[in-house]
């Protein structure tokens, strides 16, 4: 009886492993696992310290629409300064973010909510991340996919084969996709349009690049 139970447990665990590994691969369904062509991936979209990255931001959260201006700048080797303002220019949120540090310079009372801050922190850490360590690589006719692991999270970086640009990042746990980040870029240097789509909460952030010098 004991033996049977053990066998049942082993089978269940094996099944669970198969199921979970299958769901892991859902993100890259139809892709082939291939040999690594590099062990790291550099993202250049927010990496130029001389550039002011300014975007019109439209946020949909649980059916409510918010809009404003999103500003990011690399202020040293590890850190970005990020500011959200209204169209009038009033600052709503001002923070500094790196891989390990997060410091709020100012925040309006209405946005000072723990959950919101932690969501924005993980979103913008993903968006502004420059360097990924690649663990696995997948391939199909259209894209190359680089898998990078950060703690419990898997980040899948989709790179178009036709123009060699990073156009999507899927952030998932072993079982579920949490965030999809869609990027439309220009020459792989900066992102013209970014959509951050959440799946565990009803949140969508759309950023459209702004030409900030008129005439």
């Amino acid at each position, binding site marked *: 009886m004991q033996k049977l139970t053990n066998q049942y447990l082993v089978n269940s665990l094996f099944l669970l492993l198969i199921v979970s590994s299958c769901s892991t691969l859902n993100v890259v369904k139809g892709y082939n696992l291939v040999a690594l062509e590099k062990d790291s991936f550099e993202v250049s979209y927010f990496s130029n310290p*001389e*550039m*002011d990255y*300014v975007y*019109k931001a*439209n946020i949909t959260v649980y059916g409510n*629409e918010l*809009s404003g*201006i999103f*500003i990011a*700048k690399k*202020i040293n080797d590890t850190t970005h*300064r990020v*500011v959200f*303002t209204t*169209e*009038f*220019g*009033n*600052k709503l949120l001002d923070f500094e973010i790196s891989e390990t540090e997060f410091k709020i310079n100012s925040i*309006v*009372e209405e946005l000072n909510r723990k959950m919101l801050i932690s969501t924005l922190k993980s979103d913008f850490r993903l968006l502004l991340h420059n360097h990924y360590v690649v663990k696995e690589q997948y391939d199909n006719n259209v894209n190359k996919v680089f898998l990078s692991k950060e703690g419990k999270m898997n980040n899948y970086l989709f790179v178009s084969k036709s123009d060699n640009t990073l156009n999507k990042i899927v952030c998932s746990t072993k079982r579920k996709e949490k965030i999809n980040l869609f990027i439309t870029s220009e020459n792989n240097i900066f992102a013209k349009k970014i959509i951050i789509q959440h799946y565990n909460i009803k949140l969508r952030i759309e950023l*459209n690049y*702004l*030409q*900030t*010098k*008129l005439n």
Partner: protein
Amino acid sequence: MKIRVYFVLLLFCVYPFISFAQEQKMSENEIVIFKQVVKEVSKKIKTLSTDFTQYKHLDFLSKDIESSGKMLFVAPSLLQWQYKKPYSYSIIFKSGKIMIDDEGKKSAIDVGNSKIFGKINKLIAGSVSGDMFDDKEFTISYFKNKTNTIAKFIPKDANLKKYIKQIELTFDKEDTTVIQVKLLESSEDYTRIVLKNKVLNAKIDESIFSK
């Protein structure tokens, strides 16, 4: 060579005093006259339309963020800011409501119960017409230079102060109308709005404000 170096040094030392000297505090008498003129001018403003350019200055950025558009004001408190470049966005302030048109997406916020929005609304409308000399709400100081008069407003309300540290209105000396609004969030970060091509008391179709 040495003389030239001294000259340059002298110029650097004196320059801050020159620019400081350009902005002088107004006398009590001048303030009384100025406030009276502004009140008279703003009383005559039934409608106002103007182009504007907005410069958002954040100290850590390499250049200001520019946007521009048109502003319409109908006394006493109908106001529309319409950004045309680099994005299309319009915001209407009308009897306790804010109506927003963001690239065709329309929404409305009822600010009737929100004291802070009400105050910001009143402040923006007031700043455009120039009539916001409320000593209960602000600590006001007055300055002048060759071409302009500058009024600086520090909010007394602690809540409002969190959003806006100081407002500076620059008035054209000739016609005593506002030509620049500067909203300071801190000493380093501010929004500067320059008003140009002002037209006073032309007919404005009020249906614009109900869109």
